[in-house]
């Protein structure tokens, strides 16, 4: 389950990377135009937001995974302590 959430975070990160990998089309526009500059600014800013967002989701999923492992090992100890 936690792994599946990490997968979602990874996929979202890949989506953002695709944008970064593909986007250089406006870079060649004449410098007098401001809209390509504005575009480059927001692209960079959104990349950072997406990075933060996906990182936090992956960390939350890791935490969930660790909690689940701790829970499972506590259960295992209890079973051993109180055999049938």
């Amino acid at each position, binding site marked *: *389950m936690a792994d599946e959430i990490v997968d979602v975070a990874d996929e979202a990160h890949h989506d953002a990377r695709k944008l970064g990998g593909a986007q250089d089309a406006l870079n060649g526009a004449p410098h007098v135009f401001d809209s*390509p500059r504005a575009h480059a600014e*927001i692209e960079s800013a959104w990349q*950072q*937001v997406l990075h933060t967002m996906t990182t936090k989701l992956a960390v939350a999923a890791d935490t969930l995974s660790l909690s689940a492992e701790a829970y499972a090992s506590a259960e295992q100890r209890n079973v051993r302590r109180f055999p049938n």
Partner: protein
Amino acid sequence: MVTYDDVMRLDLNAYTEEARNWKTLADALTTRANDLDQKLMKLDGWTGASADAAKATFAGHRKQYQDVSATIANIPPVLSDAARQLGGVQAEVNRLVDEARSQGWAFDPAGKVVTPGPPPAPMANLEPDARRLEDAMAAQLERARRADAEAAYALRSLRPEAAGFAGPDQATVAAAATAIPPRSTAPAEVKKWWDSLTPMQQESLLYTHASEIGALDGVPATARDRANRTRLTELKAQLLAEQERLRSLGDRRIGRDNDRLADIDAKLRGIEKIEERLGKVDGKHQQAFLLSVDTNGTGRAIIAMGNPDTAGNLCTYVPGTGARLEQVEGEMARADRMVNAAKAADDATSTSVIAWVGYDAPQHPIWDAWSEKYADGAKKDLDRFQDGLRATHEGPPSHNVVLGHSYGSTVVGHTARYERLDVDGVIFVGSPGVGVDKIEELHLPPDQVHATVAEHDAIHITNNPHSYDDPTERSLDPHGPDPADPRFGGKPFASDPGTSSWPLGSAAAHSAYWDPGNRSLANIGRIIVGQPAS
């Protein structure tokens, strides 16, 4: 000031292309939000305070994905509208140029009407028609300036901060970034460093420095796999963008462009085969882990069939002449076959076989493969990779072997000779020689040096059968004597003879060692699991 020249040089397709990219991203994020919804439904049966806290956390993430998607979806209309408006300006400017030409005039780059040259000269006293055209041109340039300014303003209003998406969280994650050890660091040290990081630091590095983390020996396979899958996506997007640009040149493509386009097409085919394999898990294909990928030069990729950090048996397969990203499908198929051969020999212990296209291999069997430089260039990387497998392995030490086919055996031999491989055995298959005259130079016990060559393998022409008898003859054997010869002192094992082809042997026999039913495949499986070959 916007000039006539600026307007005409503006590529409006770029605006349209960017609009399409942003829409794709917005749609994808909505899909991710829905995926997250589906995953969170699995938590429904979990109750209690911890459960409530976890559910609230993930619900918050889900909402953020949806909100970001909704905000980003406002970007494409701005770009499309700019393209439409500026396109209208370009069309009108073109019309004015035509009209001026019909009068025998022209426009200079700033939009002034001039007499045609050469060289064009400003007109001293403008005729009324010329003045009208100049004014019309000035109005169009002003229209372009306004459209550009409005688009820039609208785009900046869609900055994340303006939409409420930047804040302390971003600073926290950015601060988690930490220095990465250089690739030359001992893998055991890398592993210690990786283990010392917090989950936030690890995740942050995976996302911000995917290429460095993905290539770093000593980082666990699951983390490298995630980093390299990100890298693969990015590299593919870059190649596709360049492919589209080159294709759009049409008749204007020159020879160099055509060569680059062919190279891109070939690498994309390799990437697609890797993607296919990464998504395939069934009875004959274990989960694959992408341990490295690079599109520079002829392209490299390292793919493990099964998790090398948890498998009891590991085999690193080093292919020979012609190995490159484009050809990776065949190397992965051989690795899969070796996993299954190992399972047939011992189903109780797990096995991972790694297709190691991790070096610049010779590409031509005659002009390139005589040289040692490719093996010398690979030896440190192969050695460090083996140390990395040891460093990240979990539980009891695994049984590790390295298999080299053809020139790949030369790579393995050079690495063992100069770097001292930390392995439990080497396997040389169809070898032109392994860069040593005597088995002792490999620094491995003779019973850990396995080799085979098929009776009809064309590789025989590269080995001098008199090497063992005469030092002068040995000097004429560029990569050293045949390691499958019993006089070498290792453990030769049987292969099927392969297709004959008089008088020089066949290329088919050289590539048949992994064919289903070939005795060599079963023997390789046995050696991988630590059993004697026949």
